């Protein structure tokens, strides 16, 4: 009966076990149709089918994944328009929108690339340097590599050199200092913002009510605090408690991966793409979810390789890791960073790396579905 509840949602007319084969076929046909339309590039129709299907099968993970995939594609169209705009002419607004979109979509590397180009074209713009800092901060809060925080401070400092009244730079500096456990430093920046903008009620409230309760160190040695957060893969204070901080941590905080949804998505998407084993690993190498055969062995292997890849990213000036693929007689093992976790999958060698990575993206997207799905 649990299976039926899970499949057809709560609060709906109870189905009997006799209905199950018929309804399962119906669901499978709906999913197949939606996915066929996605594959054909008919996104609007695919969304319609998936939305209608979700009314009947409210917890169908694969239908939810179709909708989220299409949303991402939609965003990509706007990204392409903005990219064309900045290719055609120097347009500060287009740059800023493009960077913000990349950050919101979690495309931090692309965001950085655009931001650096923005600085190249507008070297004396404090706003450009602040945008670069935002990208570094987004990356810092997702991965907690100290070098990103240092780069953000450098960009913010440059912005303040160009414009000492750049309030956004000070607000962001305060956000970083608060998060790493340096409320005294944060307080100095907040005081300066409030001096220039005394009507900022949210920041005032934060200064008066939240700031004094934050965890702090006796001596606020920024370097030590940054290294400590990187080693522990944990921040002393929650950045989302800071005004405007939620935007940077949505992926880390709100994007919690549901093991139940992961297992359901892995079963559906994994089967279709012939993925045999799947695992999600959280910060610090903590297994979050695993699906497929020989779960323990696979999660141990994935954790070990993930730790190596993270070390590589930290110590090698090679950019941020996009994915790691290992190939052998056992098939292909692919690891992909996904915000606050890494997901890994193993499939036969006949399945391309791109296809496995795409499957992983879909599983993660579906596993991070909104709260309603968590109620299962």
């Amino acid at each position, binding site marked *: 009966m649990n299976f039926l509840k899970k499949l057809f949602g709560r609060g709906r007319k109870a189905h009997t076990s006799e209905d199950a084969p018929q309804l399962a076929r119906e669901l499978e046909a709906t999913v197949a149709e939606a996915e066929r339309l996605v594959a054909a590039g008919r996104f609007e129709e695919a969304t319609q089918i998936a939305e209608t299907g979700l009314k009947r099968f409210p917890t169908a993970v694969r239908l939810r994944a179709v909708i989220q995939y299409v949303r991402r594609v939609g965003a990509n169209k706007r990204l392409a328009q903005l990219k064309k705009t900045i290719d055609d002419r120097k347009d500060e607004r287009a740059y800023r929108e493009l960077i913000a979109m990349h950050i919101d979509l979690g495309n931090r590397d692309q965001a950085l690339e655009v931001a650096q180009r923005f600085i190249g074209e507008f070297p004396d713009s404090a706003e450009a340097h602040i945008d670069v800092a935002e990208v570094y901060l987004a990356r810092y809060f997702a991965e907690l590599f100290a070098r990103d925080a240092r780069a953000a401070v450098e960009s913010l400092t440059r912005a303040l050199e160009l414009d000492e009244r750049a309030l956004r730079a000070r607000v962001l500096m305060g956000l970083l200092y608060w998060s790493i456990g340096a409320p005294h430093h944060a307080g100095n920046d907040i005081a300066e913002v409030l001096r220039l903008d005394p009507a900022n009620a949210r920041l005032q409230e934060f200064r008066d009510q939240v700031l004094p309760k934050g965890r702090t160190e006796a001596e606020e040695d920024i370097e030590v605090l940054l290294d400590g957060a990187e080693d522990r893969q944990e921040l002393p204070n929650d950045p989302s408690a800071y005004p405007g901080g939620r935007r940077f941590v949505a992926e880390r905080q709100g994007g919690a991966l549901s093991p139940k949804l992961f297992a359901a998505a892995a079963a559906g998407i994994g089967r279709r793409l012939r993925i045999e084993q799947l695992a999600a690993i959280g910060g610090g190498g903590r297994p979050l979810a695993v699906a497929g055969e020989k779960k323990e062995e696979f999660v141990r292997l994935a954790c070990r390789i993930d730790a190596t890849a993270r070390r590589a990213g930290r110590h090698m000036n090679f950019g*941020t890791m996009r994915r790691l693929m290992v*190939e052998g007689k056992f098939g292909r093992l692919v690891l992909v960073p996904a915000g606050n976790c890494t997901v890994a999958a193993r499939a036969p060698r006949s399945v391309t790396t791109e296809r496995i990575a795409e499957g992983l993206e879909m599983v993660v997207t579906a596993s991070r579905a909104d709260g309603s799905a968590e109620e299962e």
Partner: protein
Amino acid sequence: MEVILNRLEKEAWVRGSMIVSNEGMVVVERLAGDLDRDAVAALAGDLVTEVAGGLKEAGHEPFKRIVLSATTGDLVVVDCGTVYLVVITAVGSEAFYIEIDSAAQQLKRLAPSTTMRGM
């Protein structure tokens, strides 16, 4: 071995390549100026050791190839028997693997497989 790396070096997408023994020693290398020889060797050695160790622990066969894709390019490690071919590419594309595999095949003929699986 140097001839093989020299040939790879001529490819526009290759930023560097090296041959590393299964003990992690650099046998020969051709790296672009911005790449740190020791860092690349250490990274490749670490990857090989951990991946090989992890696969063995999980009861799998040894790996044939590792591709670490990063924002600035890929790091590719190919098992060539007693040595590993490490290639750093500028932009990631599986199309490059044909060239890398060809170089690896030549290396395999030069350095046939021995007892290198104990990592």
